[in-house]
Structures are given as C-alpha cells and as structure tokens.
C-alpha cells in the first residue's frame, strides 16, 4: 500500500517538500541544542520543563482521542464512522510519533534513553508512560494497517485484530491517565496535585482531538473523493461539545477549590496564570485568550444552528483546539513551576531554537500524517471506484 504515498499531484509534492524543509530547519536547531545543551532553551533551574513536555502532554491527548471513533464504530456499530475510523487511528500514530520525539528532544542525555529499559523502575510513572505509549503506537500501527489492507481487498478485517481493537480502547484511556499521573502524583506542585487531573486530561483530549479530526476530515473531503458524510461530522461535533463542556466544568471546579479554600499554595499558580504574580504576567494574555476561545467555541457548538452550519463549525473547532492547546500546551506545565519551591517567580519564555525544534517535530508529525492519510485515501478511492464499476 505504501506505493500510494509515492503517487501524487504537484501540490502534494510541494507540501511534502515544504514539510521536509521545516524538518531540516528543526534538525539544524536540534544539532545546536545537541552541542550546547538544553541551555539553548528558555528552561531554567526553576522552570525545568517547558514547551517540549507541554507539547508532549497535549499530543498524548490527541493520540488518545482516536478512541472517540473506535468506541462508536466497533462497540456500538455506528456505521457512519466506518470511513473515518482509519483517519482517527492514523492521527493517533502521528501524534504518538510526535510525543516520542518531544520526549527525546527534552532529554539531557538522549543517548542514554535505553537506560529506561535497562533499569526498569516500576515505581516511576515515566516508566509506565513509556510502556503504554509505545504499546499504543504498536496497536494502532497493526490495527490501522490490517484493517486498511483488508479494506483494499474488500474483505472484512481478519478476526485476530478484533481483540486488539477492543484493547485499544482502555489503552487509549490509559495513555492519558498515566500521562496525567506524571503530574498528579507529585507532592508540592499545587497546580498539579489534583485528583481530577486525569479526568481533565481526558476531557480536554476528547474535545481537542476530535476537533482536529473534523477539521482534517473536512480538508480531506475538499482535496479527495473521500467524503465522511455530514452525519459523521455532526456526530463528532457533538462529542467535541460534550467533552468541552466537561473540560470547562472540570477547570472551574479547580478554580473553585483553589480560590474558595484560599490556601495560598493552591491559589498562587492560578493567580499567576490569570492575573500575574509579583508583577510577572507573561502567561496572562495567553490564558485569557484561551478562556475567550473556550467559551466562544463552546457557544458556537452548543447551539445546533451554528454547529450545523459548516461555515461556522470550523471556527468553533479551531477555537476549542487552540483553547485546549494553550491550556495544556502552555499553562498547565509552566504554571506548575510558578511560583517555585521558594515562593519566587522565575518566568519562562521559549527561545527561537526551542520553537524551531518544536515546529520541526510538528512537521515530522504532519509528514507522517500526510503519508498515512494519502495511503488511506488512495485505498478508499480505489475501493469506492470499484464499487461503482461492479
């Protein structure tokens, strides 16, 4: 099936080369980091995780969201998702690839990555995270590839993948739960020390992931003959709506506990994020942008009239996606480190090198996604053509 990725229009190839160019720039930036160390980033003794780990956290959510297609299609036999389940699985593969790369570029001694395997430490959440993430990548590769292969021959997928598909459901939940546990089990970081962290992660993942997927599906419909159908899009949009409601609700619960209890440790990080602390306000505009976008997106999604309008729906979805990205991709990780363990504020701003590497990793993910989607679309167009001929 791989050959499908090698035949494409001029626009397809231009896109591929643009991505390769961006990857190249990111790679050069990474070489610089390799040489001079993580000192080329904006990270510091006080804010020791930043943009990389935040992107990792966010993308685990995107990866997990494939389950929002798998459950209705395979468990509830919701046929309308038949054409796009594969797109969800391939999105997961691309997202997990980026997650692994973000972990890699964040490491101080990347050559020693095998130490995690050589000295397995079941007490460490990071150990489990690496186990579940690689497992998830593996499951999705196998499931995606065999179901698509079966599809090409217009036969039902082999029986042995069924259990794997069912396994992928709890597994998807596990990757994001374990990722939440990276944060939620740490004493002394009040923003993270919350029992609903995993629930929040899942809610925001099931909002942002499917939102991205709808946008991709709409794009695919434009550039190819693969049309998921309005009903599938609308069903997904409803999933986004409910998940986003839960996400915002959970966040407000956090705000209530932190502010009403008035415990300084709990209130300070939120205060820093939304109003600034001791005159440090770097994240304030971001957090308010996220807030406005979250409510805007939610408003547009809740009313059927706007949700069903395919001109407005993308605006709502982009709003939800960006809001979730700011919340997790910036606020959550960085906010956990501010104020520091001595109640002092050290702010964090990513450097150009850091951003170049980040964009490079996203370009790798997009490249993987493009190739996989190209294959899936190619196969689907073939089988659709055959169906017409017969």
């Amino acid at each position, binding site marked *: 099936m791989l050959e499908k990725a090698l035949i494409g229009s001029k626009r397809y190839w231009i896109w591929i080369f643009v991505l390769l160019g961006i990857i190249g720039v990111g790679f050069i930036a990474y070489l610089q980091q390799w040489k001079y160390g993580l000192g080329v980033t904006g990270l510091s003794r*006080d804010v020791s995780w930043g943009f990389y780990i935040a992107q990792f956290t966010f993308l685990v959510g995107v990866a997990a969201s494939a389950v929002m297609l798998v459950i209705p299609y395979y468990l509830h036999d919701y046929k309308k998702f038949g054409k796009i389940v594969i797109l969800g699985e391939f999105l997961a593969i691309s997202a997990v690839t980026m997650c692994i790369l973000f972990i890699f570029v964040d490491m*101080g*001694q*990347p050559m020693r990555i095998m130490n995690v395997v050589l000295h397995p*430490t079941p007490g460490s959440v990071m150990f489990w995270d690496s186990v579940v993430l690689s497992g998830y990548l593996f499951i999705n590769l196998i499931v995606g590839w065999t179901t698509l292969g079966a599809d090409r021959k217009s036969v039902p997928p082999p029986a042995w993948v069924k259990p794997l598909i069912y396994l992928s459901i709890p597994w998807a939940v596990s990757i994001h739960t374990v990722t939440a546990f990276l944060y939620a089990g740490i004493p002394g*970081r009040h923003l993270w020390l919350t029992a609903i962290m995993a629930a929040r992660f899942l809610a925001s993942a099931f909002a942002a992931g499917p939102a991205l997927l709808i946008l991709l599906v709409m794009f695919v419909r434009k550039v190819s003959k693969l049309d998921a159908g309005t009903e599938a899009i609308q069903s997904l949009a409803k999933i986004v709506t409910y998940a986003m409601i839960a996400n915002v609700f959970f966040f407000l619960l956090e705000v209530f506990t932190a502010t009403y209890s008035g415990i300084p440790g709990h209130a300070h990080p939120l205060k820093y994020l939304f109003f600034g602390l001791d005159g440090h306000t770097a994240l304030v505009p971001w957090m308010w942008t996220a807030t406005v976008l979250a409510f805007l997106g939610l408003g547009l999604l809740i009313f059927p009239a706007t949700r069903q309008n395919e001109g407005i729906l993308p605006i709502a979805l982009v709003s939800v996606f960006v809001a979730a990205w700011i919340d997790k991709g910036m606020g959550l990780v960085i906010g956990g480190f501010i104020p520091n363990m001595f109640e002092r504020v050290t702010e964090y701003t990513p450097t150009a090198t850091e951003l170049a590497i980040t964009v490079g990793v996203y370009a790798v993910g997009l490249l993987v996604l493009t190739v996989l989607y190209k294959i899936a679309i190619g196969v689907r167009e073939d089988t659709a053509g055959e169906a017409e001929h017969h």
Partner: protein
Amino acid sequence: MSINRRQFLKIAGASTVLGLGGASVVNSLKRGGLEASQMSPDPKGLVAKRWGFVVDVSKLESEEDYKRCADACHNIHNVPVFKNDKLHEVKWIWKEPFENTFPGTEHEYMSHEFKEKNFLVFCNHCAKPACVKVCPTKATFKRKDGIVMQDMHRCIGCRFCMAACPFGARSFNYLDPRGKDTDGTPLIKVENKTFPTRMIGVVEKCTACYERLSIGQQPACAEVSNGAIVFGDLEDPNSEVRKIIATKYTIRRKPELGTQPSIYYVIGGSEHA
C-alpha cells in the same frame, strides 16, 4: 553489583575462547584467589542507619559563615559557579531567608530580622524522597544509610526529579559545567583533581559527601561550619544530632508533604525561642 564468580568465569572463559589470553586468570582462579575478588567498604568509613543533619542558624552569624559552608562544598565537588546566568545556575547548598525556606510559615507580625534571617538549604535526604520515586532509571536512589544518591553515569536528564523535589534541591546542567561563564572565566575556578565534575545534561545535587564519609571524614559543610551544621545518625539515640533534637525545638521544611526530610533546623536566635 560486583563481578561475581559466575560472571568472572564467563569473562575469563570468553576471553580464552577469543584467544585474548584469559589463561592466567583461569589459573589464578584454580588457586582459589577469585573468591576474594570482591568489593567491600573501606573500614575507615563512617556508618549509620539513617544519616541526618541539624542546622543551627543561631550559630550562623555573618555572611562569611554562610559563604564558608557553601564554598567548601562547591569547591571540593567541582560545582560550577554561575555569576550572572542565574537561570542555569547549579548549586548544592546555599542560603535562603526564613520566609522562602519555610513558605506559609511567615506572618505579618514577625520581626523583619527574623523574616529575613538566612537559612542554609541543601538536599534533605528525605526518608521518603519524591525524587527517588519518580526517577525512571534509578539514577537517583536511596542508599541503605539514608543518603539519597545521584548516579550521574546513569541519569538521562529527564528532569522528572526536579519537578518532583518539593525543596528545589536539584540542579540540571543546562550548559557544560567545564565551560565558561558569560564573562569568559571558567565556571569551575579551581578544579579539585580528586573528584569528578559532571557532564552536560545530567542532574546533580548534594550527595551528603558520600565520598568523604566513606573514608571517615565529616561532610565538608559541617566541618567548616563551627558547629552550625551537625551531622549524625538519626536512628542512634546517643548521637549528637539526636541529643540536639531531644533538647531543642527543631523544624523541618514542608513536613506536611510526607517526604520526611532529614535536616532539622534549630531556630534559636533569642532567649524566647
């Protein structure tokens, strides 16, 4: 882990097979010499069930007192000193005012002097260390004597331990510690040739002078502190640390988090304390 008999045989055997001349090793083996080929602690070494510190800040009077302790540590351990670049700073022991050492304990009626009174902070060698729990490679681990050690050979630089330590005790080598400061001077002014430096990309912190304890010396900071830092076995009721803890009021940093720090601070300073 040491080379045990089986491993040794394997190595010797393999090198013989490869014609690399393991024969003499095998011979010495037959003479029974190998049983003794083992590692053991230095008999001069200090031992304890659980090492701990008492820091009596009333005995730290001048700036000089703090500096002497910190410099002693940083000099013998080849800790790079960042004069300007505070973001990438590496430090094992340093001073912090009361309100930063014990956040949430200060109050508005506290005397200014007290609020600003400096403490010496370093790794607490917690009995239930958060850093050890999270480390995915056991690069940071707890020794039988309570010291929370850092194996810089194994550290992958993921910095999970820095996120987890509630005491800000850990530093990451963002830059090459053998490199230069912004003003062009070396970060490590004078190398201690008997101790290693670290490399870029690993985490480091106070190791309770394990290398000194093993040959019977006190921690460097304690040695130069004029009694302000006392080091001893917390499990031994007759140790000096236990005697101080039994007679004076001591506090620990953030005890509510359950990591059970092994540094006890004597506040003292006035007759009313």
